């Protein structure tokens, strides 16, 4: 499906590109939200992602999957946005107002969602490369190969980085997130 749509979009077919946007706006927005923690910022990043992708579509290899390519653009844009001075000072203000490890409030409807939000807050305590592996592999459910393509690294590197990230995450959860600790499972 991707190849045909991309081929049409590369020939200037805007309807085909709108179909691509419709198919991939959700993972792009979600990854941006996970990285930034703000829906408005994530929407801006998603918008910018599809504009950049449209501009670079001529250079995209149709033989490769589209989703990792879009997610890579989104992750780069979100990282740059997070690094910007405005985001930095906003973060400083947030840190000053909130206790460490907390993330923006999200509405939850059940215990599982409570746990997932707590997990996200724990993941945010990891370093950015480890965060991205966890987001792509577990939150967005990408395969090792797709994750490798999205991060522009080797699949073996994805596995080793994922292993280290899980170990660090486990330590963080055991230390600061009792809701997620081993004895509190809601299975």
């Amino acid at each position: 499906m991707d190849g045909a749509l991309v081929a049409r979009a590369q020939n200037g077919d805007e309807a085909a590109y709108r179909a691509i946007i419709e198919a991939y706006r959700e993972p792009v927005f979600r990854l941006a939200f996970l990285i930034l923690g703000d829906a408005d910022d994530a929407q801006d990043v998603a918008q910018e992602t599809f504009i950049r992708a449209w501009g670079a579509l001529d250079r995209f290899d149709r033989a490769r999957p589209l989703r990792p390519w879009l997610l890579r653009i989104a992750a780069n844009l979100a990282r740059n946005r997070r690094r910007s001075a405005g985001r930095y000072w906003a973060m400083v203000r947030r840190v000053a107002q909130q206790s460490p490890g907390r993330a923006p409030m999200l509405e939850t409807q059940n215990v599982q969602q409570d746990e997932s939000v707590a997990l996200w807050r724990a993941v945010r305590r990891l370093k950015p490369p480890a965060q991205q592996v966890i987001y792509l592999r577990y939150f967005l459910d990408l395969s090792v190969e797709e994750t490798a393509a999205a991060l522009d690294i080797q699949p073996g590197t994805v596995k080793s980085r994922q292993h280290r990230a899980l170990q660090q995450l486990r330590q963080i959860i055991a230390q600061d997130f009792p809701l997620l600790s081993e004895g509190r499972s809601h299975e």
Partner: protein
Amino acid sequence: MNDEQFAHRVERTARAFPYPPTPDIAFAPKARQPARRPLRRFAWAAVIVVAVFFGMLAIEPVRAAVLEVLRIGGVEVWIGGAPPTPLPLPTNLLDLAGATTLEAARAAVDFRCACRQTSPAGLCLRAAWAGADGHHGVDRPRRP
């Protein structure tokens, strides 16, 4: 819970994450820019370098430094302090060099020129002198 069980638990928990609703993405396509080729980039870089070079040549000190390095330009003008004022040449008031006669010496000066009796014959004039009594004379008599 071993590592594999922990990974499965993370996977299950992450799937329940309550994302905000995905917004619509507005798309207003602009004409795609064709991919820039390396040769064109190089040409742009060369144009920029040349423009910067000639722009810097418009600055006089830079231009002078470049011309000096390249040894271009036939005339060098040095701007510095005024040269020292040359000393005036000594005025030759009396041409007393060499031997002369008493008459010639009297003709050459506008003061009274006396000759003492103690001066030996064949006097060799060397310098004019003024005595404490206001008289001028030629050469002091040598004391034996």
